[in-house]
Protein backbone atom coordinates (compact mmCIF):
# COMPACT_ATOMS: atom_id res chain seq x y z
CA UNK A 1 0.00 0.00 0.00
CA UNK A 2 2.86 2.36 0.82
CA UNK A 3 4.14 1.88 -2.71
CA UNK A 4 0.81 2.96 -4.18
CA UNK A 5 0.74 6.05 -1.98
CA UNK A 6 4.34 6.75 -2.99
CA UNK A 7 3.27 6.46 -6.64
CA UNK A 8 0.52 9.02 -6.13
CA UNK A 9 2.93 11.36 -4.33
CA UNK A 10 5.43 11.10 -7.18
CA UNK A 11 2.63 11.86 -9.60
CA UNK A 12 1.67 15.01 -7.71
CA UNK A 13 5.27 16.24 -7.46
CA UNK A 14 6.00 15.54 -11.13
CA UNK A 15 2.78 17.20 -12.24
CA UNK A 16 3.52 20.27 -10.12
CA UNK A 17 6.99 20.42 -11.69
CA UNK A 18 5.49 20.12 -15.18
CA UNK A 19 2.99 22.89 -14.56
CA UNK A 20 5.80 25.18 -13.35
CA UNK A 21 8.00 24.22 -16.29
CA UNK A 22 5.19 24.78 -18.78
CA UNK A 23 4.58 28.24 -17.36
CA UNK A 24 8.20 29.30 -17.93
CA UNK A 25 7.77 28.69 -21.64
CA UNK A 26 11.49 27.98 -21.99
CA UNK A 27 12.69 26.10 -25.05
CA UNK A 28 14.10 23.28 -22.94
CA UNK A 29 10.68 22.82 -21.33
CA UNK A 30 9.28 21.66 -24.67
CA UNK A 31 11.39 18.53 -24.38
CA UNK A 32 11.57 18.24 -20.60
CA UNK A 33 7.82 18.25 -19.96
CA UNK A 34 6.86 15.24 -22.13
CA UNK A 35 9.91 13.31 -20.91
CA UNK A 36 9.03 13.93 -17.26
CA UNK A 37 5.43 12.92 -18.01
CA UNK A 38 6.51 9.67 -19.66
CA UNK A 39 8.96 8.79 -16.89
CA UNK A 40 6.32 9.47 -14.25
CA UNK A 41 3.93 7.06 -15.94
CA UNK A 42 6.66 4.39 -16.01
CA UNK A 43 7.53 4.89 -12.33
CA UNK A 44 3.86 4.80 -11.33
CA UNK A 45 3.31 1.65 -13.38
CA UNK A 46 6.24 -0.02 -11.62
CA UNK A 47 5.18 1.06 -8.13
CA UNK A 48 1.50 0.21 -8.58
CA UNK A 49 2.23 -3.22 -10.07
CA UNK A 50 4.52 -3.95 -7.12
CA UNK A 51 2.28 -2.31 -4.56
CA UNK A 52 -0.90 -4.13 -5.55
CA UNK A 53 1.03 -7.32 -6.41
CA UNK A 54 -0.52 -7.54 -9.86
CA UNK A 55 0.09 -10.96 -11.39
CA UNK A 56 2.78 -10.87 -14.10
CA UNK A 57 0.31 -12.74 -16.32
CA UNK A 58 -1.86 -9.64 -16.39
CA UNK A 59 0.62 -6.79 -16.35
CA UNK A 60 4.36 -7.20 -15.82
CA UNK A 61 6.31 -4.35 -14.25
CA UNK A 62 8.50 -2.23 -16.56
CA UNK A 63 11.67 -3.63 -14.94
CA UNK A 64 10.47 -7.19 -15.66
CA UNK A 65 9.87 -6.23 -19.29
CA UNK A 66 13.32 -4.62 -19.49
CA UNK A 67 14.86 -7.82 -18.06
CA UNK A 68 13.10 -9.94 -20.63
CA UNK A 69 14.07 -7.52 -23.38
CA UNK A 70 17.73 -7.69 -22.43
CA UNK A 71 17.62 -11.47 -22.03
CA UNK A 72 16.10 -12.18 -25.45
CA UNK A 73 17.89 -9.67 -27.65
CA UNK A 74 18.81 -12.46 -30.09
CA UNK A 75 15.22 -13.58 -30.63
CA UNK A 76 13.98 -10.02 -30.90
CA UNK A 77 16.62 -9.26 -33.53
CA UNK A 78 15.59 -12.30 -35.62
CA UNK A 79 11.94 -11.22 -35.40
CA UNK A 80 12.86 -7.65 -36.28
CA UNK A 81 14.76 -8.73 -39.39
CA UNK A 82 11.97 -11.07 -40.47
CA UNK A 83 9.02 -8.70 -39.95
CA UNK A 84 10.41 -5.20 -40.28
CA UNK A 85 13.37 -5.41 -42.62
CA UNK A 86 12.13 -8.17 -44.93
CA UNK A 87 8.38 -7.70 -44.70
CA UNK A 88 7.63 -4.07 -43.92
CA UNK A 89 10.59 -2.22 -45.50
CA UNK A 90 10.53 -4.22 -48.75
CA UNK A 91 6.79 -3.77 -49.12
CA UNK A 92 7.01 -0.10 -48.16
CA UNK A 93 9.66 0.65 -50.76
CA UNK A 94 7.86 -1.30 -53.48
CA UNK A 95 4.38 -0.01 -52.66
CA UNK A 96 5.37 3.64 -52.34
CA UNK A 97 7.47 3.76 -55.49
CA UNK A 98 4.78 1.93 -57.46
CA UNK A 99 2.18 4.41 -56.21
CA UNK A 100 4.30 7.44 -57.16
CA UNK A 101 4.93 6.03 -60.64
CA UNK A 102 1.24 5.19 -61.07
CA UNK A 103 0.31 8.70 -59.94
CA UNK A 104 2.63 10.28 -62.53
CA UNK A 105 1.09 8.13 -65.27
CA UNK A 106 -2.50 8.80 -64.15
CA UNK A 107 -1.78 12.50 -63.85
CA UNK A 108 -1.32 12.78 -67.63
CA UNK A 109 -5.03 12.13 -68.10
CA UNK A 110 -7.45 14.52 -66.34
CA UNK A 111 -10.23 12.03 -67.01
CA UNK A 112 -8.43 9.24 -65.13
CA UNK A 113 -7.50 11.64 -62.33
CA UNK A 114 -11.09 12.63 -61.75
CA UNK A 115 -12.17 8.99 -61.81
CA UNK A 116 -9.37 7.65 -59.66
CA UNK A 117 -9.27 10.24 -56.89
CA UNK A 118 -12.73 9.39 -55.43
CA UNK A 119 -12.14 5.64 -55.87
CA UNK A 120 -8.66 5.88 -54.34
CA UNK A 121 -9.93 7.96 -51.44
CA UNK A 122 -12.64 5.42 -50.79
CA UNK A 123 -10.29 2.43 -51.02
CA UNK A 124 -7.81 4.17 -48.71
CA UNK A 125 -10.52 4.26 -46.03
CA UNK A 126 -11.40 0.57 -46.37
CA UNK A 127 -10.12 -2.13 -44.02
CA UNK A 128 -7.60 -3.32 -46.63
CA UNK A 129 -5.89 -5.30 -43.92
CA UNK A 130 -8.41 -8.02 -44.86
CA UNK A 131 -6.37 -8.92 -47.95
CA UNK A 132 -3.79 -10.46 -45.60
CA UNK A 133 -5.23 -14.02 -45.77
CA UNK A 134 -5.47 -13.79 -49.57
CA UNK A 135 -1.85 -12.69 -49.88
CA UNK A 136 -0.74 -15.49 -47.57
CA UNK A 137 -2.63 -17.89 -49.86
CA UNK A 138 -0.87 -16.49 -52.95
CA UNK A 139 2.67 -15.97 -51.75
CA UNK A 140 3.11 -18.56 -49.02
CA UNK A 141 4.05 -18.18 -45.37
CA UNK A 142 7.39 -16.43 -45.67
CA UNK A 143 8.09 -12.70 -45.82
CA UNK A 144 7.02 -12.33 -49.47
CA UNK A 145 3.34 -12.51 -48.51
CA UNK A 146 3.89 -9.93 -45.75
CA UNK A 147 5.59 -7.58 -48.18
CA UNK A 148 2.67 -8.06 -50.58
CA UNK A 149 0.14 -7.07 -47.89
CA UNK A 150 2.22 -3.98 -47.14
CA UNK A 151 2.35 -3.07 -50.85
CA UNK A 152 -1.45 -3.21 -51.11
CA UNK A 153 -1.94 -1.29 -47.86
CA UNK A 154 0.40 1.60 -48.61
CA UNK A 155 -0.46 1.88 -52.31
CA UNK A 156 -3.75 3.78 -52.18
CA UNK A 157 -2.99 6.38 -49.50
CA UNK A 158 0.27 7.06 -51.31
CA UNK A 159 -1.40 7.26 -54.73
CA UNK A 160 -4.10 9.67 -53.57
CA UNK A 161 -1.57 11.94 -51.88
CA UNK A 162 0.78 12.00 -54.86
CA UNK A 163 -1.99 12.72 -57.35
CA UNK A 164 -3.26 15.54 -55.15
CA UNK A 165 0.29 16.85 -54.81
CA UNK A 166 0.94 16.84 -58.56
CA UNK A 167 -2.12 19.04 -59.01
CA UNK A 168 -0.90 21.54 -56.43
CA UNK A 169 0.86 23.91 -58.82
CA UNK A 170 -1.20 26.87 -59.99
CA UNK A 171 -1.60 27.94 -63.59
CA UNK A 172 0.69 30.95 -63.08
CA UNK A 173 3.63 28.70 -62.19
CA UNK A 174 2.88 26.31 -65.04
CA UNK A 175 2.59 29.20 -67.48
CA UNK A 176 5.96 30.46 -66.36
CA UNK A 177 7.49 27.07 -67.16
CA UNK A 178 5.84 27.24 -70.56
CA UNK A 179 7.30 30.65 -71.31
CA UNK A 180 10.70 29.14 -70.49
CA UNK A 181 9.94 26.59 -73.19
CA UNK A 182 10.15 23.72 -70.70
CA UNK A 183 9.13 20.25 -71.86
CA UNK A 184 6.68 18.06 -69.95
CA UNK A 185 9.50 16.23 -68.21
CA UNK A 186 11.32 19.42 -67.28
CA UNK A 187 8.11 20.85 -65.82
CA UNK A 188 7.54 17.61 -63.95
CA UNK A 189 11.03 17.33 -62.50
CA UNK A 190 11.71 21.00 -61.77
CA UNK A 191 8.28 22.28 -60.76
CA UNK A 192 5.58 19.74 -60.13
CA UNK A 193 7.42 16.98 -58.30
CA UNK A 194 9.11 19.39 -55.89
CA UNK A 195 5.77 21.12 -55.34
CA UNK A 196 4.19 17.73 -54.64
CA UNK A 197 6.80 16.81 -52.02
CA UNK A 198 4.79 17.95 -48.96
CA UNK A 199 1.91 15.75 -50.12
CA UNK A 200 4.19 12.85 -50.97
CA UNK A 201 5.78 13.01 -47.53
CA UNK A 202 2.38 13.16 -45.92
CA UNK A 203 1.60 9.89 -47.71
CA UNK A 204 4.97 8.42 -46.77
CA UNK A 205 4.36 9.22 -43.10
CA UNK A 206 0.87 7.67 -43.11
CA UNK A 207 2.33 4.63 -44.86
CA UNK A 208 5.00 3.98 -42.17
CA UNK A 209 2.41 2.91 -39.61
CA UNK A 210 0.36 1.02 -42.18
CA UNK A 211 3.44 -0.91 -43.29
CA UNK A 212 4.17 -2.16 -39.79
CA UNK A 213 0.53 -3.01 -39.12
CA UNK A 214 0.30 -4.93 -42.40
CA UNK A 215 3.49 -6.89 -41.82
CA UNK A 216 2.48 -7.89 -38.29
CA UNK A 217 -1.15 -8.74 -39.04
CA UNK A 218 -0.21 -10.89 -42.05
CA UNK A 219 1.77 -13.08 -39.67
CA UNK A 220 -1.39 -13.95 -37.76
CA UNK A 221 -2.55 -15.78 -40.90
CA UNK A 222 0.49 -17.98 -41.14
CA UNK A 223 4.22 -17.44 -40.82
CA UNK A 224 7.48 -19.31 -40.39
CA UNK A 225 8.53 -19.73 -36.75
CA UNK A 226 9.96 -16.23 -36.48
CA UNK A 227 8.57 -12.75 -36.80
CA UNK A 228 6.99 -10.27 -34.41
CA UNK A 229 3.39 -11.22 -35.13
CA UNK A 230 4.20 -14.90 -34.75
CA UNK A 231 6.08 -14.31 -31.48
CA UNK A 232 3.26 -12.18 -30.07
CA UNK A 233 0.52 -14.68 -30.83
CA UNK A 234 2.47 -17.68 -29.54
CA UNK A 235 3.70 -15.85 -26.43
CA UNK A 236 0.14 -14.84 -25.60
CA UNK A 237 -0.77 -18.52 -25.87
CA UNK A 238 2.04 -19.44 -23.45
CA UNK A 239 1.08 -16.58 -21.11
CA UNK A 240 4.63 -15.24 -21.52
CA UNK A 241 3.27 -11.72 -21.29
CA UNK A 242 6.66 -10.15 -20.60
CA UNK A 243 7.82 -11.44 -24.00
CA UNK A 244 4.76 -9.88 -25.64
CA UNK A 245 5.61 -6.56 -24.00
CA UNK A 246 9.21 -6.85 -25.16
CA UNK A 247 7.90 -7.20 -28.74
CA UNK A 248 5.58 -4.26 -28.18
CA UNK A 249 8.60 -2.21 -27.09
CA UNK A 250 10.37 -3.20 -30.30
CA UNK A 251 7.27 -2.30 -32.33
CA UNK A 252 7.02 1.06 -30.56
CA UNK A 253 10.69 1.89 -31.12
CA UNK A 254 10.57 0.81 -34.77
CA UNK A 255 7.27 2.61 -35.39
CA UNK A 256 8.40 5.90 -33.87
CA UNK A 257 11.88 5.62 -35.39
CA UNK A 258 10.52 4.90 -38.86
CA UNK A 259 8.08 7.80 -38.63
CA UNK A 260 10.72 10.08 -37.17
CA UNK A 261 13.16 9.16 -39.91
CA UNK A 262 10.67 10.00 -42.64
CA UNK A 263 9.80 13.25 -40.84
CA UNK A 264 13.50 14.21 -40.71
CA UNK A 265 13.87 13.46 -44.40
CA UNK A 266 10.80 15.60 -45.05
CA UNK A 267 12.39 18.48 -43.18
CA UNK A 268 15.51 18.19 -45.32
CA UNK A 269 13.61 17.97 -48.62
CA UNK A 270 10.78 20.44 -48.08
CA UNK A 271 12.68 23.06 -46.08
CA UNK A 272 11.12 25.71 -48.32
CA UNK A 273 7.53 24.88 -47.39
CA UNK A 274 5.65 27.24 -45.00
CA UNK A 275 4.86 24.37 -42.62
CA UNK A 276 8.60 23.71 -42.16
CA UNK A 277 9.92 27.25 -42.13
CA UNK A 278 10.74 28.85 -38.81
CA UNK A 279 11.06 25.48 -37.12
CA UNK A 280 14.78 25.34 -36.54
Amino acid at each position, binding site marked *: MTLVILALLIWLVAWWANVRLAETGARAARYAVPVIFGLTILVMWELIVRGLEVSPVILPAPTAIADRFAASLGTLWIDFVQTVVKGAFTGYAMGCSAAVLAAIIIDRSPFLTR*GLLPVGNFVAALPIIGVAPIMVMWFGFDWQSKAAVVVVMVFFPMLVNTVAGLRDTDSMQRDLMRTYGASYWQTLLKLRLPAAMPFIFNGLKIATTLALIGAIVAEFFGSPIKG*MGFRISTSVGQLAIDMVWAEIVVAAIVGSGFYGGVALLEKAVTFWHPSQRGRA
Partner: protein
Amino acid sequence: MRNALPVLTVVGVIIVIWYIAAIWMNSTWALQMAERLGREMGFTDLVVATMTQDRPLVAAPHQVVVALWDGVFGHAVTSKRSFVYHGFVTLEATLWGFALGIVIGVGLAIAIVHSRAVDMSVMPWAVISQTVPIVALAPMIVVVANAVGVEDRLLPKAIISAYLSFFPVLVSMVSGLRAPNQMQLDLLKTYGANRSQVFWKLRLPASLPYFFASLKVAIAASLIGAIVGELPTGAINGLGARMLIGSQFGQPLIMWAALFGAAILAGILIIVVGAIQRAADRRMGVAR
Protein backbone atom coordinates in the same frame (compact mmCIF):
# COMPACT_ATOMS: atom_id res chain seq x y z
CA MET B 1 -22.11 14.24 -60.47
CA ARG B 2 -19.51 15.63 -62.87
CA ASN B 3 -17.27 12.82 -61.76
CA ALA B 4 -19.78 10.00 -62.29
CA LEU B 5 -18.54 8.98 -65.74
CA PRO B 6 -14.80 8.92 -64.90
CA VAL B 7 -15.49 7.04 -61.65
CA LEU B 8 -17.63 4.45 -63.42
CA THR B 9 -14.95 4.02 -66.08
CA VAL B 10 -12.27 3.46 -63.46
CA VAL B 11 -14.44 0.96 -61.60
CA GLY B 12 -15.20 -0.80 -64.90
CA VAL B 13 -11.50 -1.03 -65.75
CA ILE B 14 -10.76 -2.45 -62.31
CA ILE B 15 -13.41 -5.16 -62.77
CA VAL B 16 -12.03 -6.07 -66.21
CA ILE B 17 -8.50 -6.33 -64.80
CA TRP B 18 -9.87 -8.44 -61.99
CA TYR B 19 -11.48 -10.89 -64.45
CA ILE B 20 -8.27 -11.14 -66.45
CA ALA B 21 -6.33 -11.78 -63.24
CA ALA B 22 -8.84 -14.45 -62.24
CA ILE B 23 -8.44 -16.26 -65.57
CA TRP B 24 -4.68 -15.99 -65.47
CA MET B 25 -4.15 -17.03 -61.84
CA ASN B 26 -6.75 -19.81 -61.83
CA SER B 27 -5.72 -21.31 -65.16
CA THR B 28 -2.79 -23.30 -63.73
CA TRP B 29 -5.06 -25.36 -61.56
CA ALA B 30 -7.69 -25.76 -64.30
CA LEU B 31 -5.02 -26.94 -66.79
CA GLN B 32 -3.65 -29.43 -64.27
CA MET B 33 -7.10 -30.88 -63.72
CA ALA B 34 -7.66 -31.18 -67.47
CA GLU B 35 -4.30 -32.88 -67.93
CA ARG B 36 -5.10 -35.37 -65.22
CA LEU B 37 -8.39 -36.19 -66.89
CA GLY B 38 -6.57 -36.47 -70.21
CA ARG B 39 -8.70 -33.82 -71.84
CA GLU B 40 -7.80 -31.14 -74.29
CA MET B 41 -8.89 -27.68 -73.27
CA GLY B 42 -9.89 -24.92 -75.64
CA PHE B 43 -9.72 -21.28 -74.60
CA THR B 44 -13.47 -21.03 -73.94
CA ASP B 45 -13.41 -24.14 -71.76
CA LEU B 46 -10.45 -22.72 -69.87
CA VAL B 47 -12.24 -19.44 -69.19
CA VAL B 48 -15.32 -21.26 -67.95
CA ALA B 49 -13.18 -23.53 -65.79
CA THR B 50 -11.44 -20.57 -64.14
CA MET B 51 -14.71 -18.88 -63.29
CA THR B 52 -16.36 -21.72 -61.41
CA GLN B 53 -13.76 -23.16 -59.04
CA ASP B 54 -14.70 -23.81 -55.43
CA ARG B 55 -11.30 -22.82 -54.13
CA PRO B 56 -10.00 -20.26 -56.60
CA LEU B 57 -6.78 -18.36 -56.12
CA VAL B 58 -8.63 -15.29 -57.36
CA ALA B 59 -12.36 -15.41 -56.87
CA ALA B 60 -14.08 -13.93 -59.91
CA PRO B 61 -16.23 -10.87 -59.14
CA HIS B 62 -19.50 -12.69 -59.77
CA GLN B 63 -18.46 -15.48 -57.39
CA VAL B 64 -17.84 -12.91 -54.67
CA VAL B 65 -21.21 -11.32 -55.37
CA VAL B 66 -22.93 -14.72 -55.16
CA ALA B 67 -21.12 -15.58 -51.92
CA LEU B 68 -22.01 -12.19 -50.46
CA TRP B 69 -25.62 -12.49 -51.56
CA ASP B 70 -25.81 -15.95 -50.05
CA GLY B 71 -24.19 -14.71 -46.84
CA VAL B 72 -26.53 -11.77 -46.50
CA PHE B 73 -29.85 -13.12 -47.72
CA GLY B 74 -29.34 -16.90 -47.78
CA HIS B 75 -29.50 -17.46 -44.04
CA ALA B 76 -31.61 -16.30 -41.14
CA VAL B 77 -30.23 -13.08 -39.68
CA THR B 78 -29.43 -14.85 -36.40
CA SER B 79 -27.60 -17.74 -38.08
CA LYS B 80 -23.85 -18.07 -37.58
CA ARG B 81 -23.49 -18.34 -41.35
CA SER B 82 -25.14 -15.02 -42.01
CA PHE B 83 -22.99 -12.00 -42.81
CA VAL B 84 -25.67 -9.81 -41.30
CA TYR B 85 -25.00 -11.46 -37.94
CA HIS B 86 -21.22 -11.17 -38.21
CA GLY B 87 -21.43 -7.68 -39.63
CA PHE B 88 -23.56 -6.69 -36.68
CA VAL B 89 -21.00 -8.08 -34.21
CA THR B 90 -18.27 -6.03 -35.87
CA LEU B 91 -20.50 -2.97 -36.15
CA GLU B 92 -21.29 -3.11 -32.44
CA ALA B 93 -17.60 -3.08 -31.50
CA THR B 94 -16.95 -0.35 -34.09
CA LEU B 95 -19.62 1.94 -32.72
CA TRP B 96 -18.61 1.43 -29.08
CA GLY B 97 -15.00 2.10 -30.00
CA PHE B 98 -16.06 5.14 -32.03
CA ALA B 99 -18.05 6.53 -29.08
CA LEU B 100 -15.21 5.83 -26.66
CA GLY B 101 -12.71 7.40 -29.07
CA ILE B 102 -14.85 10.55 -29.36
CA VAL B 103 -15.14 10.85 -25.58
CA ILE B 104 -11.38 10.41 -25.07
CA GLY B 105 -10.49 12.67 -28.00
CA VAL B 106 -12.82 15.50 -27.00
CA GLY B 107 -11.93 15.18 -23.31
CA LEU B 108 -8.21 15.33 -23.97
CA ALA B 109 -8.66 18.23 -26.40
CA ILE B 110 -10.56 20.26 -23.79
CA ALA B 111 -7.84 19.57 -21.20
CA ILE B 112 -5.11 20.45 -23.71
CA VAL B 113 -6.71 23.75 -24.68
CA HIS B 114 -7.16 24.79 -21.06
CA SER B 115 -3.80 23.78 -19.64
CA ARG B 116 -0.38 24.35 -21.14
CA ALA B 117 1.06 21.63 -18.96
CA VAL B 118 -1.38 19.02 -20.31
CA ASP B 119 -0.71 20.22 -23.83
CA MET B 120 3.03 19.85 -23.49
CA SER B 121 2.94 16.51 -21.67
CA VAL B 122 0.19 14.68 -23.54
CA MET B 123 0.39 15.87 -27.13
CA PRO B 124 3.80 14.35 -28.02
CA TRP B 125 2.75 11.02 -26.52
CA ALA B 126 -0.54 11.07 -28.40
CA VAL B 127 1.42 11.44 -31.65
CA ILE B 128 3.83 8.66 -30.67
CA SER B 129 0.90 6.41 -29.71
CA GLN B 130 -0.25 6.45 -33.32
CA THR B 131 3.13 5.36 -34.67
CA VAL B 132 3.01 2.22 -32.52
CA PRO B 133 1.40 -0.56 -34.54
CA ILE B 134 -1.74 -1.26 -32.52
CA VAL B 135 -1.91 -4.86 -33.72
CA ALA B 136 1.06 -5.62 -31.52
CA LEU B 137 -1.04 -4.55 -28.57
CA ALA B 138 -4.30 -6.19 -29.65
CA PRO B 139 -3.77 -9.76 -28.36
CA MET B 140 -2.42 -8.24 -25.15
CA ILE B 141 -5.56 -6.21 -24.54
CA VAL B 142 -7.74 -9.29 -25.02
CA VAL B 143 -5.70 -11.37 -22.59
CA VAL B 144 -5.71 -8.66 -19.95
CA ALA B 145 -9.45 -8.18 -20.36
CA ASN B 146 -9.95 -11.93 -19.93
CA ALA B 147 -7.67 -12.07 -16.91
CA VAL B 148 -9.53 -9.33 -15.09
CA GLY B 149 -12.78 -11.18 -15.71
CA VAL B 150 -14.28 -9.59 -18.81
CA GLU B 151 -15.51 -12.62 -20.77
CA ASP B 152 -17.10 -10.58 -23.50
CA ARG B 153 -14.99 -9.88 -26.59
CA LEU B 154 -16.76 -6.61 -27.20
CA LEU B 155 -14.75 -4.55 -24.71
CA PRO B 156 -11.23 -5.38 -25.95
CA LYS B 157 -12.30 -4.78 -29.55
CA ALA B 158 -13.87 -1.48 -28.59
CA ILE B 159 -10.66 -0.44 -26.80
CA ILE B 160 -8.60 -1.20 -29.92
CA SER B 161 -11.08 0.78 -32.03
CA ALA B 162 -10.95 3.68 -29.62
CA TYR B 163 -7.13 3.64 -29.67
CA LEU B 164 -7.22 4.18 -33.44
CA SER B 165 -10.14 6.59 -33.60
CA PHE B 166 -9.40 9.03 -30.76
CA PHE B 167 -6.44 10.61 -32.54
CA PRO B 168 -8.19 12.30 -35.50
CA VAL B 169 -10.85 13.63 -33.13
CA LEU B 170 -8.19 14.93 -30.72
CA VAL B 171 -6.21 16.72 -33.42
CA SER B 172 -9.27 18.31 -35.02
CA MET B 173 -10.80 19.34 -31.70
CA VAL B 174 -7.58 21.01 -30.55
CA SER B 175 -7.51 23.11 -33.72
CA GLY B 176 -11.27 23.66 -33.47
CA LEU B 177 -11.21 24.85 -29.88
CA ARG B 178 -8.34 27.19 -30.78
CA ALA B 179 -10.13 28.46 -33.89
CA PRO B 180 -11.65 31.60 -32.34
CA ASN B 181 -9.35 34.55 -33.08
CA GLN B 182 -8.02 37.15 -30.67
CA MET B 183 -10.71 39.65 -31.66
CA GLN B 184 -13.51 37.27 -30.69
CA LEU B 185 -11.77 36.29 -27.45
CA ASP B 186 -11.25 39.96 -26.60
CA LEU B 187 -14.90 40.71 -27.27
CA LEU B 188 -15.96 38.07 -24.76
CA LYS B 189 -13.48 39.52 -22.29
CA THR B 190 -15.08 42.95 -22.61
CA TYR B 191 -18.43 41.27 -21.89
CA GLY B 192 -16.83 40.04 -18.65
CA ALA B 193 -17.23 36.38 -19.62
CA ASN B 194 -15.43 33.83 -17.46
CA ARG B 195 -13.53 30.79 -18.74
CA SER B 196 -16.49 28.43 -18.78
CA GLN B 197 -18.67 30.98 -20.58
CA VAL B 198 -15.96 31.51 -23.18
CA PHE B 199 -15.82 27.75 -23.59
CA TRP B 200 -19.55 27.13 -23.95
CA LYS B 201 -20.49 30.20 -25.95
CA LEU B 202 -17.46 30.64 -28.19
CA ARG B 203 -14.92 27.80 -28.28
CA LEU B 204 -17.32 24.86 -28.41
CA PRO B 205 -19.59 26.22 -31.18
CA ALA B 206 -16.50 27.26 -33.16
CA SER B 207 -15.06 23.76 -32.91
CA LEU B 208 -18.12 21.85 -34.14
CA PRO B 209 -17.32 21.96 -37.89
CA TYR B 210 -13.85 20.61 -37.10
CA PHE B 211 -15.42 17.92 -34.93
CA PHE B 212 -17.77 16.68 -37.61
CA ALA B 213 -15.03 16.75 -40.22
CA SER B 214 -12.90 14.45 -38.05
CA LEU B 215 -15.69 11.91 -37.59
CA LYS B 216 -15.32 10.49 -41.09
CA VAL B 217 -11.67 9.62 -40.49
CA ALA B 218 -12.48 8.35 -37.02
CA ILE B 219 -15.23 5.94 -38.10
CA ALA B 220 -13.02 4.39 -40.81
CA ALA B 221 -10.19 3.97 -38.30
CA SER B 222 -12.64 2.54 -35.81
CA LEU B 223 -13.84 -0.17 -38.20
CA ILE B 224 -10.26 -1.13 -39.01
CA GLY B 225 -9.64 -1.39 -35.27
CA ALA B 226 -12.63 -3.67 -34.74
CA ILE B 227 -11.58 -5.98 -37.58
CA VAL B 228 -7.95 -6.07 -36.47
CA GLY B 229 -9.20 -6.79 -32.96
CA GLU B 230 -10.95 -9.90 -34.23
CA LEU B 231 -7.97 -11.32 -36.09
CA PRO B 232 -5.40 -12.37 -33.49
CA THR B 233 -7.77 -13.10 -30.67
CA GLY B 234 -9.43 -16.33 -31.65
CA ALA B 235 -12.76 -14.59 -32.09
CA ILE B 236 -15.40 -16.67 -33.84
CA ASN B 237 -17.91 -13.93 -34.51
CA GLY B 238 -17.44 -10.86 -36.65
CA LEU B 239 -16.25 -10.13 -40.17
CA GLY B 240 -12.57 -10.33 -39.23
CA ALA B 241 -13.16 -13.75 -37.69
CA ARG B 242 -14.90 -14.89 -40.90
CA MET B 243 -11.78 -13.93 -42.86
CA LEU B 244 -9.59 -15.89 -40.45
CA ILE B 245 -11.89 -18.92 -40.57
CA GLY B 246 -12.15 -18.78 -44.36
CA SER B 247 -8.35 -18.71 -44.58
CA GLN B 248 -7.75 -21.52 -42.09
CA PHE B 249 -10.44 -23.90 -43.35
CA GLY B 250 -9.69 -23.50 -47.05
CA GLN B 251 -12.85 -21.64 -47.99
CA PRO B 252 -11.46 -18.70 -49.93
CA LEU B 253 -14.89 -17.62 -51.12
CA ILE B 254 -15.94 -16.86 -47.54
CA MET B 255 -12.72 -14.91 -47.11
CA TRP B 256 -13.35 -12.83 -50.23
CA ALA B 257 -16.98 -12.26 -49.32
CA ALA B 258 -16.05 -11.19 -45.78
CA LEU B 259 -13.47 -8.77 -47.18
CA PHE B 260 -16.05 -7.17 -49.45
CA GLY B 261 -18.66 -7.29 -46.72
CA ALA B 262 -16.28 -5.28 -44.56
CA ALA B 263 -15.68 -2.87 -47.45
CA ILE B 264 -19.42 -2.37 -47.91
CA LEU B 265 -19.89 -1.82 -44.18
CA ALA B 266 -17.09 0.77 -44.28
CA GLY B 267 -18.76 2.46 -47.25
CA ILE B 268 -22.12 2.64 -45.48
CA LEU B 269 -20.57 4.03 -42.29
CA ILE B 270 -18.59 6.68 -44.19
CA ILE B 271 -21.68 7.73 -46.15
CA VAL B 272 -23.80 7.96 -42.98
CA VAL B 273 -21.18 10.00 -41.13
CA GLY B 274 -20.72 12.17 -44.23
CA ALA B 275 -24.46 12.86 -44.28
CA ILE B 276 -24.37 13.78 -40.59
CA GLN B 277 -21.44 16.09 -41.27
CA ARG B 278 -23.24 17.84 -44.14
CA ALA B 279 -26.45 18.21 -42.12
CA ALA B 280 -24.47 19.66 -39.21
CA ASP B 281 -22.58 22.02 -41.53
CA ARG B 282 -25.84 23.29 -42.96
CA ARG B 283 -27.25 23.90 -39.48
CA MET B 284 -24.04 25.72 -38.52
CA GLY B 285 -24.19 27.75 -41.72
CA VAL B 286 -20.73 26.74 -42.92
CA ALA B 287 -21.87 24.60 -45.85
CA ARG B 288 -20.67 25.76 -49.22
